Every structure is written in C-alpha cells, then in structure tokens.
C-alpha cells in the first residue's frame, strides 16, 4: 500500500511537471486573450498568420472574466493583446494602466468616439442596440425607447438586465439624462412587466417562439439565431428615430498590453483587424458594422450615419456599478 501511494505520488508529480514544462508559450508568436468567440474570430487570426507568418495563440473566455484575469495578472500577464466584446472591459484594463499607447496612425482610422480617450485601445467593430420584434404581432413600431413605457407594451417586451449590453445602454442613459430620469424610465419599463432573460440570443429565440412580442437586443443576434436554428426566424430588427438613446452603438475593440514583449507584432495585428479587407469580412461574416469604413453595413440595415447613434463616452461604460445599483433599486436585477 505504501508503495502504491508512493507510486501514485510519483506519477502525479511527474505528470504535473511534464504538464508544466509543456505549457510554455514563449516564442516569436502572439498570445491573445479573446473575449470574442472562437467560432467568429478564428478565421481572422488564421488569415493574419497566413499573411504575415506570425504565429498566434488564443485564449478564449468571457470578456469580463478575461479583464478580471488580466487585472489579477497585473505586470505578470503573458498576454500580448486583449480583444474584447465590449468597450467596458477594455476600459477596466485601461483604467489599471495595463494597456500600451497605440500608434496614432492606428487610432486615426476610427472616429474619436470609437477609441480610448487615453489612446490605448481602439474599436474593431460596431454593434447597434435595436428593437427586435415579431412582424406579425407588432403593427406599429416605437419611435423612441420612451414609447416602451406605454401600457400597450404590457407583458410584450423582453430585456436582459444582467447582460452587459443592456447595462451599457442604461449607463449611456444615465450619462445623458441623469440618474433620476433613468430611474423613471426603468420604473416605467418595470411597470410593463417585461420578461427577463439572461442573454440577447434567448430574447430573439423567445420572440421567434411567440413567448414575447419584442425585445431590446444587439442587432446581430437575428443572424446568430437563424444560423443556430438553420432556418429563417420570425424576428426583424428595427431602429428607433435617429439620435434616440435606443440606438446606442457599442463596440468590440482591441488593446495591446503594456507588458507585451512583442509590441510591433501586436501592432501589426491591430493594423490587420482594421484593414479594409478584414473590415469587409467582419461585416459579411459576423454581421457587425464597420467602424473604419462608415459606409459598410450588414445586409438590409441602414448605415451608421442614418441611425445617428447618441453621443456617449464609451470608455466610461466600464463603470457599471452605478447602473447596477440603479437596476437593483428598481428591482430589475
């Protein structure tokens, strides 16, 4: 028995050591922490490696969890780049001074609202909040998010209050209208007994399944759900009137870690993601908006200028504490 235990210890130890030594990722490649899912982003990395010969390793995770991980790693982070689903997670890493300043030429490719005020991250794609609805059950579309507190929407609307995309929208409302007005709006929505979901995709699915008539989601989920189900769905995207808060544009973006030992290679990747060719790919493959080429837009949707997104400081979307407290106070979280 003693020998058995000793054997087991030896086995566990050697296995652990072997496992440790195999895990070293130093070399001439880049290590990316990606909050964007493998399915959608991997082809872009593959194209980059093919074009430049630079090897890439990618660690996939949830954007917020990866941001927390980078904050925890601090100066020891092995990552070269952080690619995030939303501006908030980038803002948090930038706030801890863990991102390097980007080449001004790269920053200059996008409009001022779509990059870090500190110049340490830049948007890659745009994602617009929309009013998703079932065309056969919704006859007249709302002009503004404020119309949604009308009792005619009672029990018909779905939202995802725990989801960062919805919270970013509420944060934007607090930024522009103040806390009091936002609280009133949230109370109005709550009085209409909205159905609550964990994810945007579940809302779109619920609309298609007839459980709810409409919902507040990001624009690209109709495609995602159609691809998952392998059929057309009974859900359409609508925008509110130009300039309405409901049309908030959030972004996915990228930053280079200040601890990266391959800043030049990392810069090349950012340059690649912002290139005309790849931006076109994003629009056609992931159905997002191009931030670099404003005319490019997903099939059947209006261009960004027509939507006239409300002016919001995207970098400030990382502080959702006040938003969460408000949602808690109103009873939606």
């Amino acid at each position, binding site marked *: 028995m003693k020998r058995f235990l000793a054997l087991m210890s030896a086995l566990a130890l050697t296995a652990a050591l072997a496992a440790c030594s*195999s895990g070293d990722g130093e070399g001439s490649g880049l290590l990316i922490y990606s909050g964007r899912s493998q399915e959608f982003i991997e082809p872009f990395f593959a194209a980059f490696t093919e074009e430049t010969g630079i090897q890439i390793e990618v660690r996939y995770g949830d954007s917020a969890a990866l941001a927390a991980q980078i904050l925890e790693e601090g100066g020891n982070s092995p990552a070269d780049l952080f690619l995030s689903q939303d501006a908030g997670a980038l803002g948090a890493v930038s706030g801890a001074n863990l991102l390097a300043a980007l080449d001004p030429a790269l920053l200059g490719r996008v409009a001022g609202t779509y990059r870090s005020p500190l110049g340490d991250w830049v948007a890659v794609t745009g994602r617009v909040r929309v009013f998703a609805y079932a065309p056969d059950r919704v006859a007249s579309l709302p002009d503004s998010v404020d119309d949604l507190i009308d009792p005619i929407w009672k029990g018909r609307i779905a939202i995802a209050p725990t989801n960062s995309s919805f919270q970013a929208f509420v944060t934007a409302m607090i930024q522009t209208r103040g806390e009091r007005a936002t609280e009133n709006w949230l109370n109005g929505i709550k009085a209409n007994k909205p159905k609550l979901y964990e994810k945007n995709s579940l809302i779109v699915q619920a609309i298609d399944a007839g459980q709810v008539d409409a919902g507040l989601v990001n624009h690209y989920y109709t495609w995602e759900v159609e691809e998952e189900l392998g059929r057309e769905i009974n859900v359409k995207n609508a925008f509110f009137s130009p300039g309405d808060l409901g049309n908030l544009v959030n972004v996915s973006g990228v930053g280079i870690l200040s601890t990266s030992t391959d800043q030049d290679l990392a810069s090349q990747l950012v340059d690649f993601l912002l290139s005309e060719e790849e931006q076109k790919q994003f629009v056609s493959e992931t159905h997002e908006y191009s931030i670099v080429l404003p005319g490019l837009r997903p099939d059947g949707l209006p261009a960004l200028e027509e939507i006239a997104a409300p002016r919001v400081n995207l970098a400030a979307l990382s502080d959702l504490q006040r938003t969460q407290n408000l949602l808690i106070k109103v009873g939606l979280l």
Partner: protein
Amino acid sequence: MAIINPLSAKKVKGGTVENPPSPLLIFAGLVTLSLAALPIAYLVRRATQIDAQSLSIVLFRAKTLEIIFTTLSLALFVALFATALGVGIAWMLNNVALPFLGLIRALVVLPVAIPSYVFTYSWLSLGFLPSGFIAAVVVLTLSTAPYVTLAALAAFKRIDTSQLDVAQTLGLNQFGTFLRVTLPQIRNAVGAGSLIVALYVLSDFGAVSLLGVDTFTRAIQNTYQGSFDRGSAAILALFLVAISSTVISLEIKSRESTVTVKSSVQITKRLPYNNSIRVKLVAAIAIIAYLALALVAPLSVLLYRFFSRVSPLDVTELVNAAFSTITVSILGALIAMLLAIPVAFLAVRGTWIGVWSERAVLLVHALPGIVMGLALVSFGSEFPVIYQTIGLLAFAYSILFLARSVGSIRAAFGKVPLSLTEIAATLGQTRSRTFYRVTLPLAAPGVLTGTLLVFLSAMKELPATLMLRPTGFETLATEIWNNTAIFRFSEAAPYALLLVAIAAIPTFLISRPDRESERGELQ
C-alpha cells in the same frame, strides 16, 4: 464488527489509548491546510484593498441583506428536499425488491454527471419551467439528491439490524422503527451528504444565473462583470465564506450531539427485501418519476439538440476534448487523494489539524469557481513555469473538490476497527506500517470512492478551467461553453452527451452494490 458511528471523532479518540499521529502525517496535514487556505488568503488580501466608500456600499445596501436571505433559503430548501429525496431513494433501493437493482442504482446517481448549466438549460428549453426561486429549488434538488442517496446507501448497509429486530419485537411499527432506530443510525452519514448538497448550492452559478436567482455566487460574478471591482467581489465572497462556515458548524454540531447506543453485538446482515406488490409498485413509480425528471428530461433535450445540429460532427475535436478532460480530471483526483488521506486520517483521530483542515476544505468547496480561478491566477501568474499549465489546473480541481474526497476517506477510516490497529501494534508493527498495511488497505474502497467523486466534479468544472487551462487546451466543459456562449446549443450537445457518457463510468463504480462493504468491513 462494524463501527456504527464512524463520524464521531471524539468517541474514537476517547476510546482507547492512541499513539499521537506521526510527524510526517502532521506535516502532510499542514500542507493541505495551507493549500486550502490559499483562496481564502487571496480574498482577505483583495478585501482589505477596498476603499471605505465601496465597502459601505457593499455592506449596507439593502440588496446584500436580500442576497443573504435568498442564498440561505435556497441552500436550506434544496438541502432539505434533496435529503428527503435522497434518503427515500436509498431506502427503496435498500429495502424493496426491485428488478434491475444494480442498473437502477447507477442510474439514480447519474444526474450528478450533468453540469448544472446544461441541466438547467435543458429544463428551461422544455418550456414549462418558470424562472425564479422555486424553479431553482426544483432543479438543484433533482440534480443534487444523488449525493445524499450515495451517503444514505452506504449508511443503510452499516445499520445494526439487531436493533431493528428488537424495536419490532417491542411493538414498534415499520415507520416508527425507521424514525426511532434507523434514522439516528444513518443521521451522521446523511448529514454529511446534505452538507455537500448545501455547499454545492452555495457555489453553483449555472442554475442560479439561468433562472435569475440572486445568490452570493451570482452577485460575485455580476460584480466582476459589471464593475471589475475585485475588492467588492472579495467582500461578497467573504460573506459567502461566513455563511458556509455557519452551515458547516451546524452540521458538525448536529453530528456531535448525536448519540447512538451500540448493542454489545452488532449485526449488519442484509435485511430481507420487502416483497409486497404495493410497496414495490409505489417504489417503482417513485424511482421512475425521479429518473424521468432528473435524467430522461435533460438527456432527451440533449439528444433532440444533437440530432437537430446543422453542422457536421467534428470527431477529432470531440475525442481531443474528451482526452483532455479525462487526463486533467484524473490528475486532479489523484492530487486530491494524496492531499485528502492525511487530512481524513487526522480528522478521524480528532486532532486539531485534522479538524481545522477538514473545515477549511469544506469552506473552499463552497467558493464559486471564478474566485478559485482568480486566486490561482493571482498566485500562479507570479510563476510563469506553472502558470496556465495542466498541473496548476489539476491542482485547482483538487483544492476545489477536496471536500468530496476527504468526506469519503474519512468515513472509510472511521470504519476501520480500532481493535485491528491495536492488534497490529501488539504484534510489534510500527505506526506507519500499521497505517500502510492495516488502515489504508481496509479503507481502500472509501479512498477510491472519494477519488472518483473528485474526478466526476472536476470533469464538469468551467470558470476556473477557463482561466487556468493552458492556452488552446479544450475540455468537454470548455467546448460546451464555446458553443453555448454563441447560442450554438445544438453544437454543444455532442460534448454534453459525451461528458455524461464518460461520467457514467465513475458513477457506476461508485454506486456498485456492496462497494462499501466489500473489504471495508470485517464481519
């Protein structure tokens, strides 16, 4: 002769003159204790970095009170219902002559193999489960009852049947006998199972997030997600630690206050099965109903999803993920076994290191995976050689699930008759030789069960896996996540089904009839 009350450390300690544990054991116990303290130390460090204003917001908002209430009541209700359900099922398996008993025994334990996010998602997509507290109680009760079933099955086998005969001779009916004789004898073992259920509920994220129930684990996750405020999250996690230690102390108290009187002669012979048609029918219906809700429902959703996939099956990825899952989970289970043996041995002897290590191990068990992940990120990123390696991931598993293995191993050590170790000592065996040649072999089935339980839990783990795995290393759980994160539920189905299929193997081994009494007890 079997020892009836293996969990009562005091009795064993006070019973006979014992040698103090060897220095090697004490050292090993201390190592485990300090490793288990690692995540707690991390939380304290982060919590002390918080500024006063954020602290007061976290502490004094009304929501925190509500979260405490929700968390406690969820843990309480699930533990109660799962205990009732688990004991009921175990009683039926033990006392009713059902057909296919061996198969049923394995099947009723299998629901633990389904990750709670998969389980909940399947139930939600059936369409008739409402969101909220009650749904969470239902889902978590169904998926955790097997932990109690396992504990109760083992306990039923050790029951002193001579006392049952006496009770019935004295005119107690069957139910009265169960309440007054059987229950006190299985109470400690079942209590340990209920504790595992309560701690599982405290640390669960999958079910509560999908059903929208505000427990501490969900609040912690939301705090990281919403404000990236690690200080506030740590404060919330420490709240959770406080709640878990209360729950743990309650269980230990009830354990200590239980007094079972042993007869001079103990008989643990098999009782004859109840053969009445009515009892058999009721039992069969109850078990079929449980299996339908806890196993058939989620599995049929997965199968439906599997067959409605749009994209073709990637067999290579599937096999790779399965291989990775098995490798790292086995490694984690082996580490847990090595760490658990000294703790269990010291705990059964009632030494303070043993008792405190056991508590620390239980506390860590109730921590959300994201906290464990971040603690080891914080610690591991200082050492690039181990950071994001299979070794560190396996280590994380071993610490997170150590409670499972300590629990079984401790029970197994408790059953080793003292008389045998005393005989060994009389025969001139040294303490360590006695331990290796008498105690450990007799406890081997319990050690195996504990190790398999860690393996089973490690296979399903997600949040710590995402942070600590080597870059590019995919397990079945991460593949499920890869797909569900982008709403590809059908593409996730093959991985979930394979996970359940692989988990069925240790489940079957654990639930095998007479596993416990095979060698663990001398009659």
